[in-house]
């Protein structure tokens, strides 16, 4: 019988039972009257015979087997009545718990999306990625075709191996409407989809030709992601078999993947396309020009990661025999095998999220402890009611159940409010978080999160209710009824426990406050690091350059030069320049390791235009920056940064001494480029790491014959100094870009101020969250302290009155209260300092310019907490001092 039908039928059955017993009574009466007894005597006899009817009814109902449900409903109704009667109390409890549950749920939502996400592949936990690496596994190399073919042939741990690689340069869907949509283009092995256990929603997909995985039947074919199919082809179902153009190369569409499918799993917003990688004999070489592929494999069921790793290590010993160059061999000495899911989130973010989840958990604990305290106070106030129920025959279990149900109802209400809070919080921070964490937050709720929420609700109720309920039930009935007043014997023990709970709250709050303080100091320090350049009034466009159009052309003269001139003449533009990557841009960096005069030099390379130095106001330490005199035909020149001169100048302490040094030649046979200046560029990649050696080269001196670097294959940032508000400039610049080439409309815009702000990244996010957590914790803690003291004072009114009557000074009384507050706070702070000390380790990775065990931060957090606590204690202390002895004594 379903629960609901039971509930509906319950009332009907109850009246049935009443009827049945009534019939019984009437028949018995009728029999006796028929036998000649007088009616009054008959009634009395029947009533005597039948005994306690109410009890009989109850026992009968118990026989129905679902009386627990009735009790439960009774308890829920009773709990709701209680809540209505003391609205303030209910609101405080619900609000407090909602804060804790909300914070924990919000953080859990983020963690669920980032760390626990379900990858859209079949048995995703069996998928592993493999790469070759040298001694440092962080720098991995992918694998060449020959190597991975050998892996595939020799290994037994995997059902299959597949590979993929990004298309060269940026990819656009071209042709048709004239606009060019930038997409994520990938070259993959034809067996990739089969390995992932994914099938196209439309079309046959790639047909892998056995036995090799480089061969395919339908060559020149392409599979579209659902997003690309919808945005670029309007969801046209007849697209299978038709030709489309990617970067002006025609491909035949053989499939459209189902919604949500993506590989690699990187949430590229505009969608992905996959083309078959055609491998020929020319790929069977080992050289600098070879492509290196990312490799994914599916472990055979039952094969552990360790076993696979061990097998690969053995195979790799054979593989590297082919490499004759010792450096190449050293770079591939080992193979790493990692679960694919674990490679998607970097370790820092994982740690950050777990630390924040822990912080949210602490806040939730504080909230629960606070509610425990509130309920303890309340159960003292309700002692009489409980005792009365006991006296009327309620069993302890029954009263315990009732109090637990009350707790559940309260925490259930709090959950509803909490999840609303969590949703708002995730939506507000989601936009920041999704770009930083590469996660799509559009689907907020799922089974895991709801399950976690239910768990939280239940545990909150258990945590905060059990103790108060147990104490209330165990309290002896008689004294509570006899004394009747509010001042009963159990008070003192209760108060000691409640003081303990407040101290626990204080300790946990201090931990959060210290963490918050450390991050705030980090942010403060980061913001005050001298950048060494201007950031105001600069619009930055990360150009979306259609590489495929410029493979044989000089991109500097055909695209960049005209584009700069066009932008330069826009209204409001003071100056426009280009740089492969603006400082802190985190978009693209070029690292070169080349021999300079017989010495290996490792440095970053940044092609720039001469205007860049004035746009950013980079100070020149020595020599000059590029100017109009530097042309493709003039002497090749370079500008370096102080880090470079410190590393490679003849006199390390004199940047002047590097001027004139000949470093590299830009093309074969040309004279070596000479250093003409040292430009100060503090903080190029991130604010918290020092500059690395870097070389600037004038963009115009890089041509198609340059072998150092091909400018057309790269990213380029356009930086514009403007007189106008940057928001007004962006649409104009975008229009100018689109005119130059339709693909450029895909460029992403920002301002230099924004880029600097974004570079604070995870620290800022963590600091904001911890501000919220720490602030809430402080509030809860102060509220808990105040609540306890106010209660104690009201409970001790009579005692305080007697003290005054016996000659105590009023200041003695307030000191009494303040001393109690001080004790709780000091104990809490002492324990909390220990906790904070232990937990600060978790934060170490985020901190900059401040030690994890920074004494000042700890001391200020402790002081803040102590002062707030004393302030909260001041109000009850004053109330204690104002007790009127006459009234206090009379009130009893």
């Amino acid at each position, binding site marked *: 019988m379903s629960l609901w039908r039971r509930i509906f039928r319950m009332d009907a059955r109850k009246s*049935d*039972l009443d*009827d*049945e*017993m009534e*019939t*019984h009574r*009437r*028949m*018995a009466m*009728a*029999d006796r009257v028929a036998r000649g007894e007088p009616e009054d005597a008959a009634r009395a006899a029947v009533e005597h*015979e*039948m*005994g*306690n*009817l109410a*009890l*009989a*009814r109850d*026992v*009968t*109902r*118990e*026989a*129905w*087997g679902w009386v627990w449900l009735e009790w439960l409903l009774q308890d829920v109704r009773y709990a709701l009545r209680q809540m209505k009667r003391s609205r303030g109390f209910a609101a405080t409890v619900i609000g407090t718990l909602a804060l804790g549950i909300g914070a924990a749920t919000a953080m859990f939502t983020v963690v669920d999306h980032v760390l626990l996400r379900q990858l859209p592949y079949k048995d995703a936990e069996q998928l592993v990625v493999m790469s070759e690496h040298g001694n440092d596994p962080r720098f991995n190399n992918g694998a060449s075709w020959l190597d991975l073919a050998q892996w595939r042939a020799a290994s037994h741990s995997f059902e299959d191996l597949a590979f993929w690689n990004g298309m060269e340069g940026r990819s656009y869907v071209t042709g048709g409407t004239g606009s060019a949509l930038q997409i994520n283009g990938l070259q993959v092995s034809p067996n990739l989809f089969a390995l992932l256990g994914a099938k196209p929603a439309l079309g046959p997909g790639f047909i892998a030709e056995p036995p090799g995985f480089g061969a395919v039947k339908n060559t020149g074919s392409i599979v579209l992601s659902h997003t690309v199919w919808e945005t670029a082809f309007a969801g046209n179902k007849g697209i299978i078999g038709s030709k489309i153009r990617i970067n002006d190369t025609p491909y035949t569409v053989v499939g459209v993947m189902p919604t949500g499918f993506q590989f690699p799993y990187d949430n590229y917003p505009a969608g992905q396309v996959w083309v078959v990688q055609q491998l020929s004999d020319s790929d069977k070489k080992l050289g600098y020009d070879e492509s290196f592929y990312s490799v994914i494999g599916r472990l055979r069921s039952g094969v552990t990661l360790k076993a696979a790793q061990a097998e690969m290590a053995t195979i790799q010993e054979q593989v590297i025999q082919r490499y004759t160059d010792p450096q190449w061999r050293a770079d591939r000495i080992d193979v790493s095998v990692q679960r694919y899911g674990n490679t998607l989130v970097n370790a820092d973010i994982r740690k950050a999220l777990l630390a924040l989840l822990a912080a949210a958990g602490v806040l939730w604990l504080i909230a629960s402890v606070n509610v425990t305290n509130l309920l303890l106070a309340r159960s003292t106030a309700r002692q009489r009611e409980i005792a009365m129920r006991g006296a009327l025959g309620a069993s302890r279990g029954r009263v315990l159940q009732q109090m637990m149900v009350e707790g559940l109802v309260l925490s259930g209400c709090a959950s509803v409010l909490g999840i609303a809070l969590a949703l708002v919080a995730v939506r507000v921070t989601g936009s920041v978080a999704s770009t930083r964490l590469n996660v799509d937050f559009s689907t907020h709720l799922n089974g895991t999160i709801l399950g976690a929420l239910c768990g939280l609700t239940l545990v909150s109720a258990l945590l905060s209710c059990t103790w108060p309920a147990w104490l209330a039930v165990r309290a002896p009935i008689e004294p509570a009824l006899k004394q009747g007043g509010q001042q009963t014997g159990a008070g003192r023990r209760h108060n000691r426990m409640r003081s303990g709970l407040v101290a626990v709250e204080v300790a946990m709050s201090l931990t959060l406050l210290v963490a918050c303080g450390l991050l705030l100091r980090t942010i403060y320090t980061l913001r005050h690091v001298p950048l060494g350049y201007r950031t105001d009034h600069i619009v930055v466009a990360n150009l979306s350059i259609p590489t495929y159009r410029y493979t044989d052309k000089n991109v500097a003269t055909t695209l960049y030069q005209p584009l700069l001139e066009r932008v330069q003449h826009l209204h409001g533009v003071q100056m426009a320049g280009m740089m492969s990557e603006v400082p802190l841009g985190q978009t693209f960096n070029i690292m070169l390791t080349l021999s300079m005069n017989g010495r290996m030099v490792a440095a970053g390379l940044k092609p720039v235009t001469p205007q860049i130095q004035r746009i950013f106001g980079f100070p020149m330490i020595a020599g000059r920056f590029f100017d109009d005199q530097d042309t493709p035909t003039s002497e090749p020149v370079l500008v370096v940064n102080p880090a470079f001169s410190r590393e490679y100048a003849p006199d390390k302490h004199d940047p002047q001494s590097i001027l004139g040094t000949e470093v590299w030649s830009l093309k074969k046979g040309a004279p070596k480029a000479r250093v003409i200046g040292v430009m100060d560029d503090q903080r190029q990649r991130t604010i918290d790491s020092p500059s690395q050696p870097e070389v600037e080269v004038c963009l115009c001196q890089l041509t198609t014959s340059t072998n150092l670097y091909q400018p057309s294959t790269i990213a380029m940032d356009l930086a514009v100094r403007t007189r106008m508000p940057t928001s007004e400039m962006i649409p104009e610049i975008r229009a100018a870009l689109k005119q130059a080439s339709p693909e450029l409309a895909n460029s992403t815009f920002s301002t230099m101020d924004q880029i600097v702000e974004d570079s604070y990244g995870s620290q800022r996010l963590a600091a904001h969250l911890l501000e919220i957590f720490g602030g809430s914790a402080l509030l809860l803690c102060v509220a808990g302290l105040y609540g306890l003291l106010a209660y104690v004072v009201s409970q001790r009114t009579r005692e305080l009155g007697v003290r005054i009557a016996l000659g105590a000074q009023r200041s003695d009384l307030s000191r009494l209260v303040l001393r109690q507050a001080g004790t709780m706070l000091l104990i809490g702070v002492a324990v909390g300092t220990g906790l904070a000390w232990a937990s600060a380790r978790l934060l170490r990775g985020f901190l900059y310019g401040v030690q994890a065990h920074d004494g000042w931060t700890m001391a200020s957090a402790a002081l803040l907490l102590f002062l707030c606590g004393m302030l909260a204690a001041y109000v009850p202390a004053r109330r204690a001092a104002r007790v009127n002895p006459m009234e206090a004594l009379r009130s009893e």
Partner: protein
Amino acid sequence: MKKEKETYQNRIELLQGTLDMLILQTLQWGAQHGYGISQALRSRSSEVLQVETGSLYPALHRMERYKWIAADWRKTEQNQRARYYRITAEGRRQLASERTRWSGMVEAIASILEA
């Protein structure tokens, strides 16, 4: 449900088990309401057995839940509405097994007493 039944059976004490058996036996002769059952038990035991309301109805409702008996509302000869219970096939089986147990117990007790 199964588990509850087991705990129920473990809980059976002589008297209670006996009451169930007696009620089932009474219903063998035809459907009857609660008052009728108590009267029948009383008259057949020559006024020795007095079943209390507080035991009778819980027993009836419990047996109804176990589907040993079924109930419906009917009119009595005096044109009163009353809830009539009748024994089901499962109830008959239960009665048979209770009777076996009962007679086994009676024999055992008797042999002890006569020894």
